[in-house]
């Protein structure tokens, strides 16, 4: 057994964890795994390190491998550190019909990085994702909680600039 780390959710988050656990029948607390992984990712630097996953395993009283199995299955979890802004550009058919591929080229050109890379200044990580149910406002990308829709090669520059200005 590995040494337990000193990681801990904030008091406020621990309250939230308690509330989440109460949503499921007794003995079925593993159901909280996905909600907790989302919380952990947000609280511990935007990615899931093995230590963070082990901490979540401790909370749910499950084996660490059960967390790794789940975290690696779902596409949302970052298993490596990312840039400050993770640009998730939709690459699926309906977005491509409206120019997603050109948009992606433009973003790569503007940021000087390829899909999967993080910019040298640590500001941007560029990812492609599958359909985000926003085909009516294609092409689009998600950054954090927010959808950026009806993008094109012109307005993407404004969007990127707005992140730089933040």
């Amino acid at each position, binding site marked *: 057994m590995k040494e337990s780390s000193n990681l801990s959710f904030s008091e406020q988050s621990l309250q939230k964890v308690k509330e989440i656990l109460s949503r499921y029948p007794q003995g079925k607390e593993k159901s909280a795994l996905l909600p907790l992984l989302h919380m952990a990712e947000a609280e511990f630097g935007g990615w899931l390190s093995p230590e963070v996953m082990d901490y979540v395993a401790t909370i749910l009283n499950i084996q660490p*491998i059960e967390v790794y199995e789940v975290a*690696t*299955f779902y596409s949302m979890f970052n298993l490596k550190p990312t840039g400050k802004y993770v640009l998730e550009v939709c690459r699926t058919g309906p977005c491509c019909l409206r120019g997603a591929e050109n948009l992606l080229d433009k973003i790569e050109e503007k940021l000087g990085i390829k899909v999967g890379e993080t910019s040298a200044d640590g500001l941007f990580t560029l990812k492609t994702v599958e359909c985000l149910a926003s085909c009516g406002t294609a092409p689009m990308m998600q950054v954090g909680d927010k959808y950026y829709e009806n993008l094109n090669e012109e307005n993407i520059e404004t969007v990127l600039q707005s992140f730089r200005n933040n």
Partner: protein
Amino acid sequence: MVKVTIDGIEVEVEENTTILNAARRIGGDVVPPAMCYYSKLKGSGGKCRTCLVKVSQGSAKDPRPMPKLVASCSTMVQDGMVILNSTSPEVVDARKSVVEFLLINHPLDCPVCDQAGECDLQNLTYAHGLSKSRYEEERRTFEKIDIGEHIQLHMTRCILCYRCVYTADQITDKRVHGVLNRGDASEIGTYIKNVIENDFSGNVIDVCPVGALTDKTFRFKQRVWFSKPMDAHRNCSKCSGKVALWMKGNDILRVTGRKNSFGEVEEFICNECRFEKKKTEDWTIEGPRHISNHSVISQNHYENTFKAKLASRQPKEIYGNKDSAEK
């Protein structure tokens, strides 16, 4: 009890028996091959799709055929069910394609694989596969890793049957390996470097249908068909101590569980028996182990049923793992 007919042969079995187990009751060619199902592992099965069969009559009550082929390992029999296995061209065809799918990312490195000769995938391919692959794309590969002192994981060969995961879940106290990632990027692993250390971890080697998990104490020592399997036992505080020894002269090259004609161990054995007891004085040797002639293991030893069989049957059927001529 319910009556079912498989490939024209009637058999009576208990309710809640799977089609596969009903077929195993009959034996011979009516037994569908199974690469992921393992009767001793709860929840196993359904994944590899090699055991697909056709249900041409659902039951006596509702004789409608099932619309799709079903996994015989996870479909329960109904009274009056009529099942077609090797007598259905549709099944034979589907099985052929499953074999093709299983092989597209398999390295086909049998010449350097310790499992060769007792590999379920090799046997399955002989019995049901195409002689030539139509796959021209790149194959997925992984680095070999050691998971524990005595076990090597060669993920490139894995067919993702999940048996080793169920084994760790069900017969050891703490599972440290599992299935990571998804789709064809799925892999068996520990995620962070970790070792599988517990008294029963070695059983993952026995349940592995291919050469993905192998015994490092036996690595490259001997082709299995050149070794003599002997039943033996010892007094063991951890397991039954009933094993199969794989010998060359008086040397014990390898210790495994005793596998039945369906390739399943009769009992799981502990690591001490498997990895540490390699001297003949450790064991009471009972005598030669009867190996089903489903693989080439039986080719070169004293129980040479091979030639007799060759005279009477097509070679393909001799290699076929659905053949259960075990006595």
